[in-house]
C-alpha cells in the first residue's frame, strides 16, 4: 500500500467552495484558489472538487476553474460533476485534472465507465458512490444527491454496484456514507471494510470524519485514503498534526 492519503474534498457551486450537512443546506466557505493553496501548504495528498450543482442540473462542470487549479497545485486532483461523455471527461483531463469522478451519470449508463477507462486508463477513472443504509440494514446507492429535490434511490445495492464499477474499469471507488456526511461521528467502518474487501481497486472513505482517530480507523478498515471536508474547512483538524498522529499510530503517511 502506498502512504495513506488525506484528501480534502471541496464542494463547488457556481465557482465557490460550499459545504452542507447531510448533502443539504450548503453555505459558502470561500474561493477555490484560497482553499486550494491552503491545502497544498497543509500537505494534503490529493484534492477532490465536486461541482455539486452540475449533475442535477444536467450540465457539466466548467473548465475555467479546473485550469486555474491545475496551474496552482503540484499534487493530484480529481474533478466530479455531471461528466456524462468521453469528450467531457477528455476536456477535464486536458484542462489539467488528473482524474475524473463519475457518479450519477455512471448509474444512468454504466458503460460510461468502460468508455473512460478504455481511452484514458483506469487510473483516471474514479467512481463516486453515495451509499445509504435502509431500515433492513442493507446499503443502497443514491443518485442525484447534489440536489435534495431530485435525490433518489438508484435501485442498486452498494456492494453489487462497486463490484460492477470495478469490473467495468473504475480505478478507484470513493465511498460516501451519506448518513455520516458532515456529522463528525466517524467513518462507517464496517461498510468501508465491506467495500474494500469487495474490490481490488483503492477505496476512499468519505463521510463522518470528526477526529484524528476516525482517520486512523478508516485506514485500519482498509481505506487507501480518507476524504473529509467539514473538519478541514472549519480548521478543526490541521493536516500536519493529523499526519503526525497517524505516523505515531504506525500508519504510513507522507510527511
Amino acid at each position: 500500500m502506498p502512504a495513506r492519503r488525506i484528501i480534502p474534498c471541496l464542494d463547488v457551486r457556481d465557482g465557490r467552495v460550499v459545504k452542507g450537512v447531510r448533502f443539504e443546506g450548503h453555505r459558502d466557505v470561500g474561493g477555490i484558489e484560497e482553499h486550494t493553496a491552503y491545502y497544498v501548504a497543509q500537505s494534503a495528498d490529493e484534492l477532490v472538487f465536486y461541482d455539486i450543482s452540475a449533475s442535477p442540473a444536467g450540465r457539466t462542470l466548467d473548465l475555467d476553474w479546473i485550469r486555474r487549479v491545475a496551474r496552482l497545485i503540484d499534487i493530484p486532483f480529481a474533478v466530479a460533476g455531471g461528466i456524462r461523455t468521453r469528450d467531457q471527461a477528455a476536456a477535464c483531463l486536458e484542462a489539467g485534472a488528473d482524474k475524473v469522478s463519475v457518479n450519477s451519470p455512471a448509474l444512468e449508463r454504466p458503460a460510461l465507465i468502460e468508455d473512460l477507462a478504455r481511452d484514458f486508463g483506469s487510473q483516471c477513472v474514479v467512481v463516486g458512490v453515495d451509499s445509504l443504509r435502509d431500515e433492513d440494514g442493507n446499503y443502497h446507492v443514491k443518485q442525484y444527491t447534489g440536489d435534495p429535490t431530485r435525490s433518489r434511490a438508484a435501485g442498486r445495492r452498494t456492494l453489487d454496484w462497486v463490484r460492477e464499477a470495478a469490473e467495468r474499469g473504475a480505478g478507484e471507488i470513493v465511498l460516501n456514507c451519506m448518513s455520516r456526511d458532515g456529522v463528525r461521528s466517524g467513518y462507517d467502518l464496517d461498510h468501508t471494510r465491506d467495500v474494500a474487501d469487495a474490490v481490488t481497486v483503492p477505496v476512499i472513505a468519505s463521510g463522518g470524519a470528526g477526529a484524528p482517530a476516525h482517520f486512523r480507523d478508516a485506514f485500519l478498515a482498509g481505506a487507501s485514503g480518507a476524504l473529509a471536508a467539514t473538519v478541514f474547512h472549519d480548521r478543526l483538524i490541521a493536516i500536519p498534526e493529523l499526519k503526525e498522529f497517524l505516523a505515531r499510530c504506525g500508519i504510513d503517511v507522507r510527511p
Partner: protein
Amino acid sequence: MRLVCIDLGYGNLGSVAIAFERLGVVPEISGEPEVLRAADKLVLPGVGHAGYAMRQARARGLDRLVAELPQPLLGICLGMQLLFEHTEEEDTRGLGLLPGRVRKLQPAPERPVPHMGWSKLDVRDPSLGLASGDYVYFAHSYACDDGPATAASTDYGRTVPAVVRSGRLTGAQFHPERSGAAGARFLGAWLAA
C-alpha cells in the same frame, strides 16, 4: 532551451507543461515532426491507455520519428511504458527503444491495483535530483520489469522501477508534475543534465 511536449492527442499535457513552466521553461506542445526535430529536449507525457496511445502515435507517424530522434527524451508514466518493447495493456507493441516488457501489477490484500498514491523511493542514481525516502505520486496498473536501466524504484509486491535511464532516454513511472517538491527537483535535474 527548446522543450517540446509530444502531443499524441490524448491525456493531460497541460499539467506537465505547467510543471516545467514553474521551473522557468515554457514547453511547446506539438505533434508536428518539424517542431519535434527542432527541440533540444522532448517529453512524452502520459496518462491514458497504451493501445489508444500507440494507435494515435502510429496514425501520426510519431512512433518512427520518436525512435529516430537523437535528443534527450523523458517519458512520463504511460510515456515511460511505451518506451519498452511490449506492454500487456491490450497486448500492445511499444516503441521498442528499451528492452523489456511492461506487465500488469497483481492486486493482493493491502495492495490494490491501480497503484495509486504516494510511495517511498529507493534511489540508486544520485544524479536524479531524488533521494531515498522521498515520496512521489504514482497512478498506474502496469509496470516495467526491474533491470539494469532502473535508477530509482519502489516496492509494490515486486520491485517497481520508478525511474529508468539509458543513454538519451529517461522514464518516470511516477508523475513528477504531481509529486510536489520532489517531482520539481527531478524535472529540474533532467532539464539541467
